[in-house]
């Protein structure tokens, strides 16, 4: 009996299935527990990867819940690439439909934030623009130009206090989150990504800059504090070029 990799994989991902026929113990008997070694290796290594990717989610739901949830996730969404540093891309969508977690409606956005932090950690290094370059431009020229932001820079918007929840679970003695919408800017001046609370107007502006819009077209919100927003980006080494 030949064992196809299709049958082997199906057995690995479905603990209810018997081990494929043709896999043997040393005495020639059908392997059972020996096949479970592979099942277990796969489940443990993928659960470990998810724990490493979502430390805040894990803190919010507890170890036991997280482990059980990871077991469901890894069978529904096995990795599509050998780059385990990015495993878990489908977690926000998964959490939106995972019944036992629906009482914590902010979890999907926290997952989005944690995924963005990982991407920022592994993003390409970038040369920082000297802030003088902006000051040297006449106002009209400045408004007509585009800013290139570092590859690590991202914006995550939420109807929930994701910045406060993130801090409360990563920084000791942070204030208790208050239920309100929050937007987060992620930057990486050195090697460690940082989260910054920004208002909705700044989030809109920075998202448009990331998409390559000229500065003039990012000023759609009249509450935008442009000076403070640019100062934040420049201060966090988030701007790499003006063009």
């Amino acid at each position, binding site marked *: 009996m030949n*064992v196809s*990799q299709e049958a082997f994989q199906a057995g690995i991902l479905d603990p209810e299935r018997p081990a494929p026929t043709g896999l*043997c113990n*040393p005495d*020639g008997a059908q392997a059972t*527990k020996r096949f479970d*070694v592979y099942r277990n290796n796969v489940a443990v290594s993928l659960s470990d990867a998810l724990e490493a990717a979502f430390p805040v989610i894990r803190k919010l739901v507890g170890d036991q819940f997280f482990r059980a949830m990871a077991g469901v996730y890894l069978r529904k969404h096995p990795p599509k690439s*050998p780059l385990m540093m990015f495993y878990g891309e489908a977690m926000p969508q998964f959490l939106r439909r995972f019944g036992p977690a629906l009482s914590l409606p902010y979890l999907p956005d926290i997952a989005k934030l944690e995924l963005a932090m990982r991407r920022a950690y*592994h*993003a390409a290094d970038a040369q920082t623009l000297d802030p003088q370059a902006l000051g040297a431009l006449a106002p009209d020229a400045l408004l007509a130009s585009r800013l290139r932001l570092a590859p690590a820079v991202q914006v995550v918007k939420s109807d929930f206090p994701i910045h406060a929840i993130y801090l409360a679970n990563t920084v000791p003695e942070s204030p208790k989150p208050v239920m309100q919408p929050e937007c987060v800017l992620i930057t990486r001046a050195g090697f460690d990504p940082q989260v910054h609370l920004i208002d909705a107007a700044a989030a809109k502006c920075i998202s448009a800059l990331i998409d390559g819009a000229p500065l003039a077209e990012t000023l759609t919100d009249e509450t935008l504090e442009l000076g403070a927003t640019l100062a934040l980006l420049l201060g966090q080494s988030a701007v790499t070029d003006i063009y």
Partner: protein
Amino acid sequence: MFDQSHDAPLPALPGVGYKPQHYADIIKDPDPVGWLEIHAENYMGDGGRPIAQLRHLAERFPISVHGVGLSIGSEGDLDPDHLARLKHIDDWLNPASFSEHLAWSTHDSHFLNDLLPLPYTEATLAKVASHISQVQDTLGRQMLLENPSSYLAFAESTYSEPDFLREIVKRTGCGLLLDVNNVFVSATNLKTSPQAYIDAFPVDAVGEIHLGGHDEDEDETGAPLLIDSHGKAIVDPVWALLDYTLARTGPKPLLIEWDNDVPEWGTLADEAKRAARALSGIPA
């Protein structure tokens, strides 16, 4: 087939599997290990700390790039994107060595993050040999292929593992990475002799040796079932098998692997010192 214009090969000294938590200790250790191994997949991001640390380490140590995700034993084709990522690392790092496993981990675009076994038949031999030739042609270098840990056997196999590996070497010109702990784990699990495996192994092709710790369990009949966990110290019978192996191979680059429950640097450095004694002919 492939050129040999790469940097100097790994030295016949102990090396360790690099873990980021040991970075500062490795840099300041007054009696440094001979070389470091990295898992290729952990350095496939675009930048940031992992790449910066690797660049810095590569200025001080010979680096061995060890792939854990290429799935050379796949029934299907190699993932061209993944092969391109390996080529990219190989190009900028120009490591002393590249190695991968006789195993598969990807099927139908799902990656299972484990080294899964394959039967040893004419069909799998042809497939594995063609994958290895593709890797060597892409990277422009010889690669080393590592023997796996086995927990079970395939009824359909027609080759012993050493014969299968010897035939792959003959067809592709690749070298072999002999994992002595894997030999011990497989022989215990399959009730064969680890010494007989070493006796049958094509030692002329060995370019590197791996050593690591394993866990102990039992199967449903009460027979010992060893798990290749890389989460413990190396046990004495594996050190003894290393002595037996070195008597056949002579000194080789010798890696200490410790990937789970990673200890303080000192514990790992002590294992490397024991490996150094074994390499100089003092029984480990």
